[in-house]
């Protein structure tokens, strides 16, 4: 080792990279390789047969895959946008409160403590068509006599999943946007008011630009584990009814473990990884841009 000296930061980062290489990178390369084979768990010898891009071709020509893909993107788009809006609303409500802010903030974080699998189970319970809280309430209030088949009818099931997803993740947005609102200097708002801005203009041109980077932090964190939705869907409907709420991740799991077709599943997994990376990089860039804008303005 004489004459060879690693610089301090590299040395400090080495353990992190070593673990990540062993647990993430190497397995990923392995799965990349196996996505070019017809590998089935039950037949180990198939691991060494190369079939080129046939797995990818069969995925791309499979309508079920594209439905799952489209549904995943749709779910993420709806959920992220609504979470952002609701989180903003919630943060502003709490910020305006004059008393009991600490209690309110704690209550607001409540859903963050639920693991996704608990969220899934809890909403499965509440949306149960026979004994669920939602149907019971609707019937007791006399809004409907029938048991609404949430989780059984495909559109309703998708709605129920979206609601569960939004319930569980809105608080991340709310808490971070609230941090932004509290950290914001008060003078610009007063100045805007004195200059005759309407409340809407004050919000749009003064508050919002300042809060934006905080919203993007929340987006970045969320996009780091968008796949949380897997747990929720797995518990609530398991992709049913008849595959109508199948997302990319549940499809991957089913192909790999129920059908034991690892090669094919790995090829699909690569699509879901690319999707996650696209989301993360997009929001990370937005974050950098929003930061730069604040830096210039304040």
């Amino acid at each position, binding site marked *: 080792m004489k004459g060879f000296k690693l610089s301090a930061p590299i040395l400090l980062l080495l353990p992190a990279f070593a673990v990540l290489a062993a647990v993430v990178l*190497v397995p*990923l390369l392995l*799965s990349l390789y196996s996505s070019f084979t017809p590998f089935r768990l039950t037949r180990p010898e198939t691991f060494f047969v190369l079939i080129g891009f046939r797995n990818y071709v069969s995925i791309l020509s499979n309508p079920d895959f594209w439905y799952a893909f489209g549904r995943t993107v749709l779910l993420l788009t709806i959920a992220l946008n609504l979470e952002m809006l609701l989180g903003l609303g919630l943060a502003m409500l709490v910020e305006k409160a004059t008393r009991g802010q600490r209690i309110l903030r704690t209550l607001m*974080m409540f859903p963050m403590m639920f693991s996704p699998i608990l969220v899934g189970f809890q909403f499965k319970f509440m949306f149960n068509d026979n004994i669920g809280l939602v149907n019971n309430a609707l*019937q007791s209030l006399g809004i409907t006599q029938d048991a609404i088949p949430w989780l059984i009818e495909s559109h309703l099931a998708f709605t129920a999943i979206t609601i569960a997803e939004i319930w569980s993740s809105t608080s991340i947005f709310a808490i971070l946007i609230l941090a932004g609102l509290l950290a914001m200097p008060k003078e610009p708002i007063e100045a805007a008011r004195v200059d005759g801005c309407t409340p809407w203009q004050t919000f749009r041109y003064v508050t919002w630009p300042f809060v934006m980077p905080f919203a993007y932090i929340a987006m970045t964190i969320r996009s780091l584990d968008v796949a949380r939705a897997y747990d929720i869907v797995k518990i609530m409907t398991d992709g049913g009814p008849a595959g109508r709420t199948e997302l990319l991740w549940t499809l991957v799991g089913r192909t790999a473990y129920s059908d034991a077709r690892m090669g094919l599943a790995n090829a699909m997994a690569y699509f879901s990884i690319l999707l996650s990376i696209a989301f993360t990089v997009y929001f990370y860039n937005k974050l950098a841009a929003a*930061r730069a804008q604040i830096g210039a303005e304040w």
Partner: protein
Amino acid sequence: MDENASARLTRRALTVAHRVGLFLAMLLICLPGIWIVLSSLRPTVEIMAKPPVWIPQQLSFDAYIAMFSGIGKGGIPVLDYFRNSLIISVSSTLIAVAIGMAGGYAFARYRFRGKSGMFLGLMLTRTVPGIAMSLPLFFVYARLGIIDTHFGMILAYVALNIPFTIWLIDGFFRQVPKDLAEAAQIDGCTRWQAFWQVEFPLARPGIASAAIFAFLTCWNEFALASQLTRSVNSKTLPVGLLDYTAEFTIDWRGMCALAVVMIIPALTLTYIVQKHLVGGLTSGAVKG
């Protein structure tokens, strides 16, 4: 005068609207949790009742007693799951925080080539969905024979936590002024001493919250655990929750009780760290 009165009226109406809005929002947030706690305390007959029984007639801890009295008495091996969860979560948290401190310090204090690229790369490893990650891991683990062991789960969870731990700890070290450590070094400390005597104590609350966050991630993780664990040797609580579901029936009351058991540690820990957590996540936001 008239204008004054109407202005006052508008203001009062706005206050009331704000109160009502806040109340409704909080109700929506808390209701599912309250319902779970309530359901765990009432007899199954009441949960299944048609028309619904809104106000519980009697409360009992039967579900909890059944759960902890072990297999055969309508319970599941909750104590084993609990122990597994605890062992796996605590050890992977400790390791992840140690590694994360080294990494976070490097990002906060040094300038080096490819720094932001490395940071983004680190984050990207976290984006790989658990279920996609589980396929190759399952294969590798099966080859190494570490499926269904504590070691395998700990290793996976350390890797899962490192990126986020580094992000958080990086933020906390950045909040500690550089001058302090430099002053200590001028006074004769080595860099190593300066770190432990000056920077570490100042960043400690933040590091503690990073640790709790890592712990919660492990405590709640399901996608990986459901594939990499097989039996009471290593099954964690989230996977154990599924024991209450049979082919066509679900023991709702038992599930609710286990949910409460899972949520209480998470609730307590999150309450402790809530202040630091936000600080760590956002410290880089404004200063860049």
